[in-house]
């Protein structure tokens, strides 16, 4: 009996951990796009809401009937490397134009429950025409139409907009395409998660936008701040923390709290002298992987990391790394074909270094410096002896 009980508890714990990581990866989880994860979250909503409140101070709303769960993530240091991405083509990041159109659209959509792609485009034109700093939307311009469609598709992905007739990408071809939309105003409102309302701030100020007034308890603020970072970031280095945060993270009580939170999320905590990181063995709660398969920049990043680690503690100039890539090109003639055109090597160097930077393994500059967690990925000398000679890549 007790065995059964504890087995069930364990299973519930595993499910809850999965739900937590699903929300960490997709803070707006919809029944339409991720049914399995959504139902998992809905099933454990009663425990997840207080869990996020307790450990991170993030508000979780689960609208089981409406079919979405929203974790309102807040960070004191919002990250510029995790953009919204287009849902078509190469998943390129949104640019300023697309972000702006997305927001104007959201504002216009709040006033009605049903609309069409054409009416909406008209309203977008009017709304942008009266805003001096926003370039006026022109539905005759192909580029504007593309940006419009990207913004619409993003709204659809979030379920703030549902095409009840027709398909959004028809608009790419001609501006008189017919698409009928239903609007979910509540979900639109839920897209905003910043603790401060932008319209009440005097000007563009990200720091003011994320200011949280809720804390009068220091211990709570420290706990939330550290757990948030660990649940969200690839590495947390002690030298990035404030004095108080560092004391909390290395103290006995703080470590216990942090470890509990990370483990309840199904992650593994790695504690080292220079910092900590949470490992997600299933790679559920991550937007990208490193090391990664089938990705030339990730593969190159690993290659460059070897060189940078070998030079540690000396920094490695970019030119040396560029040479390393050139040598690789020569060594494997069939490798990384798409980067062999003009300037391709420089592009590959940039992208590979960006991967390392995103995982907080290097510090970029004129010369590249390694950060401590990079040592995790060092090629083990014993293993390299056993490595078979690489076959020629096809």
């Amino acid at each position, binding site marked *: 009996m007790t065995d059964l009980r504890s087995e069930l508890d364990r299973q519930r714990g595993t499910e809850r951990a999965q739900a937590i*990581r699903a929300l*960490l990866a997709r*803070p707006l989880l919809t029944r339409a796009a991720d049914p399995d994860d959504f139902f998992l979250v809905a099933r454990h909503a009663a425990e997840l809401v207080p869990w996020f409140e307790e450990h991170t101070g993030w508000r979780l709303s689960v609208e089981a009937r409406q079919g979405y769960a929203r*974790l*309102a*993530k*807040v960070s004191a240091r*919002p*990250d*510029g*490397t*995790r953009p919204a991405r287009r849902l078509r083509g190469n998943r390129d990041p*949104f640019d300023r134009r697309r*972000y*702006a*159109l*997305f*927001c*104007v659209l959201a*504002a*216009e959509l*709040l*006033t009605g*429950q049903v609309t069409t792609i054409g009416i909406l485009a008209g309203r977008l034109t009017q*709304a942008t025409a009266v*805003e001096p700093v*926003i370039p006026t939307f022109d539905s005759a311009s192909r580029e504007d139409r593309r940006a419009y469609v990207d913004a619409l598709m993003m709204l659809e992905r979030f379920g703030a907009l549902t095409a009840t007739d027709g398909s959004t990408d028809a608009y790419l071809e001609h501006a008189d395409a017919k698409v009928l939309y239903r609007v979910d105003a509540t979900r639109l409102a*839920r897209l*905003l998660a910043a603790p401060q*309302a*932008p*319209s*009440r701030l005097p000007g563009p100020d*990200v720091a003011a936008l994320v200011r949280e007034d809720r804390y009068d308890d220091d211990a709570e603020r420290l706990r939330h701040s550290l757990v948030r970072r660990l649940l*969200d*970031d690839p590495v947390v280095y002690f030298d990035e923390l404030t004095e108080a945060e560092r004391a909390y993270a290395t103290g006995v009580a703080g*470590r216990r709290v942090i470890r509990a939170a990370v483990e309840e999320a199904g992650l593994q905590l790695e*504690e080292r*002298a220079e910092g900590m*990181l*949470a*490992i*997600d063995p*299933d*790679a559920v*709660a*991550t937007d*990208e992987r490193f*090391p990664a398969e089938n*990705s030339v920049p990730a593969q190159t990043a690993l*290659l460059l990391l070897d060189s940078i680690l070998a030079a540690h503690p000396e920094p490695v100039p970019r030119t040396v790394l560029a040479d390393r890539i050139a040598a690789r090109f020569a060594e494997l003639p069939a490798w990384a074909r798409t980067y062999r055109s003009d300037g391709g090597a420089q592009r590959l160097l940039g992208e590979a270094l960006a991967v390392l930077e*995103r*995982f907080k393994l290097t510090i970029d500059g004129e010369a590249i410096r390694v950060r*401590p*967690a*990079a*040592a*995790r*990925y060092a090629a083990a000398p014993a293993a390299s002896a056993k490595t078979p000679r690489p076959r020629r*890549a096809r």
Partner: protein
Amino acid sequence: MSDARPAFRRVPADMFAFTTTERADLHTAVMQVFGEAAERLRAALTFDEVLAGLPEIGWHEPVSDESLEYTLGALHKHGLVDRTQNHAAHYTSAAEYERRNLHYSLSRKGEAAYQGLLHALDLLDSSGALQTSVLDAIAARLAELDTLLGDEGADDRRVHTAVTELEGHLTALRSGVVRFNGRLQRLLRDEGADPAVFQEVKQATIAYLTDFVTGLDTRRLTIAEAVARVEERGVEALHARALRGADLPVLPGQADPAPRFLERRAARWAGLRDWFRPAGGGRARVEDLADTARSAIVALMRALERLSETRRRGSSTAADFRTLARWFSTAETDEAAHELWAAATGLWSARHTHLAPDDPTAVGPGTSWFSAPGVHVSPLLRTHGQSDRAARTARVRDTTEIREQRRQRALRERLELEEAWSRLATPGPVRLSAFARLDQGSFSRLLELLARALTVPARDGERRASTADGRLDVVLLPPPDHHLAYVRTARGVLVAPDFIVSISESRPGQAAPVPLRTDFRREATA
């Protein structure tokens, strides 16, 4: 003499036609002139009096005699205005006589149309409300009737007034409900209004409805009991006394108004019962009213909740989005825009490594990353961008997934098999060399079939066999010549004597495959 036809069939076709023509303005104004005159007990108007009456009701544009004449003619044609000869006036000229000898007055239909018009305007203006006071009034009148009926000496005229008042209140209740419900539904639909106003209106409505519903329950019981008491004393007696009190004039040449009076009273009483104490113990309409009010409260609360979710932020969400749009447009770089996106929406994904050291407890937390054991990165990842998956086993074994994968694989294999078989089936006997090129799956099937056929003894030079499951039959004849067959597969070429082969699906009920054609046989044995 109640009319059995439903209301929608009884409306005269042209009753309200005057409000829809091109000259509707003047037509309606003239109707109003008649209506106002009737209130002053002036039944008939001359042409000039109508003309003079127009400014009094607020018509200040000049009206030519022709258009007024046209209007009066049109109203007469619709049966709204009666025209009578005026013999009392003095005429000084023939022209004057022609023009002014007529008296105009509203017909019965005209009166009804005018009242209908006023009522419609009234409804358009009114906001619609449910008044608990109406319910109180109904209860009070019923109590009064109870008392009056108990007192034989009471004035019948008092009974009549009380019945009339009661019916008036009931009518007020019904029309109030219709209007209120309409307004409520509009309110529930109307989401796009200014949020501040919307919130105020809805909050007020909720407070009002809550009061109403609270009051409704007790009042409903009071009225139902009062209805029961009056009925105990006899509704027919009540209406008989009301009829006496009404003192209806009986005019020569017209039907006795009494039966019609009683009939109407009975109908109204039945209406009252429907509302508060339905015969047969059915559902009282007032309960529907309570339900509607209750569900409206819930719906409004929900709408308010949604709104306060929007307003939680202190200012309107739309303004927030517009502000953000401006900020995005003025961002220095795309990276700054990404940062703003993260700050405003919190819609970013976590980012973690998925590789863990083999033994996480090997070193203490004070160890530097530089001296701690690293994670196992597949060497192939460095060279080929592929990891040797076999090197590491999956950390979590999900048996349901494995089972599903196996099921899928079995299904896939089954399908491949089916496909291979169908590909092997020949239209009739063919030479082995006809299978010039085969995929690996079909080729091994073919080999299996040939092997089976070749192991059975030949009868009459012919070898027959079937697959283990009996799905396919094969018939093999030795080659008539010394040709060789070359069957190519991805892995190599099969060189064999060019047998004559016939492969067919064995169907149930069909014992043996179709025998080989004789010309082939001859060829084979030759």
